């Protein structure tokens, strides 16, 4: 099958864009999850026509296609579990237009997130979504998995910025949805249907995002607590006082210790919990907000409060949080960042449940996450060569999500389902919901060739 596939692909795309040597296939068999599967061929698309050509071949031969950007996802979304074609759009990396009148940016899917942010920033504009892998993740991947980050508490996630898409469908047809309109209630919102669909409905070739003006000022505060419950209480209190910080992150003692071991971010290593808070707005506004926030922290028994004096100091504080995953992977060879989300006021309960699971299995579960929006990341750190540790991993993972669901939460806040949480989907969704999703999938992709076996 695969020689025929390669022949068909090269006849349409040319030799340079089709990879099939064993060495090449190996390199497209993984992502940042712990799953692997070899594809039969890799297409490195330069333009929409390449994507169309690859889809036509796949449709004709009824072969799976897995769209891929930087493959930095954590859930196995880009693993070609059934072989077939890995369709790499990383070379489609042009920023096509920054529209300063309509506050939009239009680009191709292979642009790296941080490069998009930098480009719009040059024009005084702001693309808020900030997944913590933004230095290497592709914007197409961000849309496919609806990536989020610390700023979600105030600014929302990728979904909230997608205005329009150009998509190549399973049969090779090109679909355009949405556009530059900020309001649009005509028909079903197909654009949003594609966001977070993990490449199961189509392949992105162009996307238009909403932008905001850059906030005038930002202030960062770090504070430490002797009891993690006090930290959680602080989060609720801040929101209660009608302040929505632009970032509101919670780190537990173990994470703080590991981050400090990895880099000096100035976190107090002996605290039970640390909150990192950023407010933004106008110059006078941020000062007022930061005053209120520090008062509330003190009221909730914060032990140390430090307000960053300048942007450089703030940067160090946030660099620590950003290096969280890295710090943990420096500690143990394998790290699974779990991604549970609960309603904001259930955060203390969720944190307590994670601590109980950690105790039950006798394994550290360093936890940090976006306290402001109820999204926590307990990290399962283990050595895959240690049989005893490795055997506990799936049990710990399932218990974390059962805990989240019992609190009315979800099995994924921002990492997606991919392969890693597929088996948990039926615990969250009723058969009615799953049936409808299967129906939608069948409308777009009757032969089930687009990233089969993912998303739900």
């Amino acid at each position, binding site marked *: 099958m695969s020689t025929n596939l390669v022949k068909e692909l090269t006849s349409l795309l040319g030799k340079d864009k089709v*990879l099939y*040597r*064993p*060495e*090449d296939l*190996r*390199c*497209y068999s*993984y*992502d*940042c999850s*712990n*799953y*692997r599967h070899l594809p039969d061929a890799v297409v*490195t698309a330069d333009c929409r026509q390449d994507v169309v050509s690859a889809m036509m071949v796949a449709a004709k031969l009824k072969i799976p296609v897995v769209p891929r950007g*930087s*493959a*930095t996802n954590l859930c196995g979304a880009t693993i070609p579990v059934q072989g077939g074609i890995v369709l790499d759009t*990383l*070379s489609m*990396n042009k920023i096509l237009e920054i529209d300063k009148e309509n506050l939009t940016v239009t680009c191709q899917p*292979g642009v*790296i997130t*941080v490069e998009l942010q930098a480009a719009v920033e040059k024009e005084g504009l702001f693309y808020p979504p900030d997944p913590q*892998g933004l*230095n*290497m*993740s592709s914007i197409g991947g961000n849309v496919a998995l609806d990536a989020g980050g610390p700023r979600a508490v105030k600014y929302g996630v990728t979904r909230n910025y997608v205005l329009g898409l150009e998509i190549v469908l399973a049969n090779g047809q090109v679909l355009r949805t949405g556009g530059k309109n900020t309001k649009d209630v005509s028909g079903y919102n197909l654009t949003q249907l594609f966001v977070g669909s993990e490449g199961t409905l189509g392949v992105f070739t162009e996307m238009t995002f909403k932008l905001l003006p850059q906030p005038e000022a930002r202030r960062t505060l770090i504070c430490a607590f002797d009891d993690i419950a006090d930290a959680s209480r602080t989060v609720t209190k801040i929101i209660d006082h009608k302040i929505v910080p632009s970032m509101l992150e919670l780190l537990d003692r173990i994470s703080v210790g590991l981050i400090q071991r*990895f880099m000096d971010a100035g976190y107090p290593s002996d605290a039970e919990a640390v909150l990192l808070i950023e407010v933004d707005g106008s110059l006078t506004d941020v000062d007022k907000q930061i005053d209120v926030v520090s008062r509330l922290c003190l009221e909730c028994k914060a032990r140390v409060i430090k307000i960053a004096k300048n942007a450089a100091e703030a940067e160090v504080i946030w660099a620590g949080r950003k*290096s969280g*995953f*890295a*710090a943990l*992977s*420096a500690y143990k*060879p*394998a*790290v699974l960042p779990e991604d549970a989300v609960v309603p904001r006021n259930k955060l203390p309960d969720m944190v307590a449940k994670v601590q109980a699971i950690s105790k039950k299995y006798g394994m550290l579960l360093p936890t940090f996450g976006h306290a402001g929006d109820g999204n926590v990341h307990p990290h399962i750190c283990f050595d*895959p*060569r240690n049989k005893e540790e490795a055997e506990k991993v799936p049990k710990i993972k399932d218990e974390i999500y059962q805990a989240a669901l019992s609190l009315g939460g979800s099995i994924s806040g921002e990492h997606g389902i991919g392969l890693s949480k597929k088996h948990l989907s039926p615990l969250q969704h009723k058969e009615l919901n799953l049936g409808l999703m299967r129906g939608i999938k069948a409308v777009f992709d009757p032969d089930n060739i687009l990233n089969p076996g993912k998303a739900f």
Partner: protein
Amino acid sequence: MEKLPNIRPGMNPELEKIYYQTDACVRCGRCTAVCPTYKVTRKEMMSARGRIFLARKYLEGSLELSKTFTLYNDLCLGCQACLEVCPPKIETDKLISLIKQDIIDKQGTPLGSKMMLKICSHPQAFHWIAKLLDFNKKSGILHLLPHEFQNRANMLPPASSKTFIEMLEAEPVKTGRGKLKVGYYPGCLTNALYPELGLAVIKVLQQHGCNVVVSDEIVCCGLPHKAGGEHGEHRRLARKNIEFFLGHDVDYIVTNCGTCTRAFKEYVDIFEHDAHMMAKARQFVEKSRDIMEFLTDTTGLNVGSKSLGGIRVTYHDSCHLNRGLRVSKQPRKLLESLPGTKFIEMPRANWCCGGAGSFSFKHPDTARKILRQKIGDIQSTEAQVITAGCQGCLMQLGYGTREFGVNCIVKHPIELLALTY
């Protein structure tokens, strides 16, 4: 989830150790943000995480040795940018060089590399080759050769009429009453292609109260031989350099090339079965310094008062100098102290220029893409002078200015310093 396999039995212990180190690669992709070969190709095989993955499969025995595998390993610049950002600090450059060594052990040194190494072993041969090429370029004979060969020949700067050593023979170094006795190691490229740099170094050292020892007995640092698997020759060259400088009882050995100084650091390990030589090598390594580090940190900078007339200067970090020897602040300090000079930091100054030893000759297409990006970064500073502390970089950057028509001169910072006296 994948069960972790093991390395196949009988591999050398160093490879085995680094194999288990790569267990910690979580494929987070941080390396993809800084790897120059990935940046210009956007292909997974050209990233550290791809190379690690392939190396693991090869070491586990599930991937055969092939031309493609050899090529992908050879396409690693060895710039160590990935090591800086890698959370578990996996030494990909070391892994790749051990794999390359393993391939050479199995297949022998390729003929082209063998010839190159022969040339490197003989200081004067280098110069004659450069002169021959230069003559061919001027006479037009080169046009008769295949295009690929012409391109490579263009990478070399115009040859000078005399080598550095020949110039010294004509006008020997004056010995004064300097406080320090400093051995100067010019390196093959300075001798053959950049003799005026060698003269500048001597002048600058003398201005810093040093008595300079230099000689035609000095030979190649041996790095190319090590990389080419010729360990005996590597040891022979190392021994010659060590014995020459220690024999002259110098206080320091100073170089103007990050790569050579970095190569010296490896002299200790290669004599692991010879305690006497090992002790000498250690002494030699302790005395060796890059010149910019030496002037800034050891003697203290002595800058002349002559203005350079308001030139804009930028600086490119050589990977060996910056990541290998941690010398990056000193050159900037030196450049900022020059009268009549405006120093401008370029974006991505610490990104490899694509020279990387013989990389640009072996892989001109990839090297050219990396160089084009570097030249773009340089142009954004509007600098008139590009500086770098390694002859390999100087050669590659010089080629870049000619190839992309950039009106910039390429100098070692020491050459600018020499102009201020």
